């Protein structure tokens, strides 16, 4: 029984489509991918508390997305979280830039917002942002509020 050539081609296309779909699922949809746009520079910052910040969270400057969080680690010596940010190379940050962790919307994801400083010197790859503001944790705020309320 001969299998015609067109059937073989169709089966080949079918299997290939399956592989393309799997490839997309692996690289684009789930978090296996690590080779996104790599044409940026990295700056680090220490935060007391990063809340629910995750890698690949956006970094915005005046609301414009200028990079992503590339790595989050706990630094034992400082007792703080160390966040590495990959900033696209066309955006320059002055050395007194301030980094804060905010939440997008009420239930949204957390992101880092950068506020520009006044200095002329700019941050280079591997530099440190020294002015940081931690994430606001809802329980802490409620806790403070309760203490205020009861101490009155």
């Amino acid at each position, binding site marked *: 029984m001969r299998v015609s050539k067109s059937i073989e081609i169709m089966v080949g296309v079918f299997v290939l489509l399956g592989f393309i779909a799997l490839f997309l699922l692996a690289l684009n949809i789930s978090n296996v991918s690590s080779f996104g746009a790599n044409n940026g520079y990295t700056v680090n910052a220490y935060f007391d508390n990063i809340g629910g910040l995750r*890698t690949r969270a956006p970094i915005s400057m005046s609301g414009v997305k200028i990079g992503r969080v590339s790595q989050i680690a706990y630094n034992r010596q400082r007792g703080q979280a160390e966040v590495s940010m990959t900033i696209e190379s066309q955006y320059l940050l002055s050395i007194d830039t301030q980094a804060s962790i905010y939440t997008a919307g009420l239930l949204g994801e957390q992101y880092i917002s950068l506020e520009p400083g006044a200095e002329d010197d700019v941050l280079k790859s591997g530099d440190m942002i020294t002015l940081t503001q931690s994430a606001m944790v809802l329980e802490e705020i409620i806790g403070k509020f309760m203490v205020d309320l009861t101490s009155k």
Partner: protein
Amino acid sequence: MSMDWLQTIGQKTLRFFQRTGRAVIFLVHVLSGLKMLVQRPRLLIRELYSVGVLSLLIIIFSGLFVGMVLSLLGYVTLVDFGAEGSLGVLVSLSLVRELGPVLTALLFSGRAGSALTAEIGLMKATEQLASMEMMAVDPIKRIITPRLIAGILSLPILTAIFMAIGIYSGFLVGGVWLGVDEGSFWSQMQAKVDFQHDVVNGFIKSFIFGIVVTWIAVFEGYDAAPTSAGVSEATTRSVVHSALAILALDFVLTSIMFGI
């Protein structure tokens, strides 16, 4: 009178166990044909065409519309909470974990499973299987094994296509039409969807569904009464039993994989 009633119950129970046993023996017999299939892979290619490639169209269109509906409904609900950035997570997780494997398997049992049952049932009714046996060709190894393996291989491939198309069409509606931020759509999706936990488990599900659906389809065909009424009955049973098996198994698998 009451004895008759008891007798019927006993008879039905015994028949059920007999059928189950026959299905298992049948499966073992089918799997013993694997060696022959390795020697003659062309048999598999033909079946992959009729089982897999011909099911492609319905899978692509279903994936397209399921993704679009999911995205639209998800947006309507999430936008009230200002959480429409999570739309990507909602669409991708529901497609990858549940809808992809289950809907593809249900469509597959309707499109390919019923065709397999009818084809094999008709072969039996027209005594093609018996004449093969006369020529000392084992009809189970020659006819059934390639179809079973083709079904088991096709369903995960179709599921992958369904998932990918569903997610991209969800993005089409959510990101392009409804204006959800493209960055948060994809970045939250990539942050929340884990390849090991979500995608791989989805594929394990679809692999198991592939075995069950194709097994039911070929067994019902082979076990059909060799009449036109018997074939039609077997085809109906194949689709109904597959659907029940998929949905019941899905609950068990989900509670094992994603339960607490």
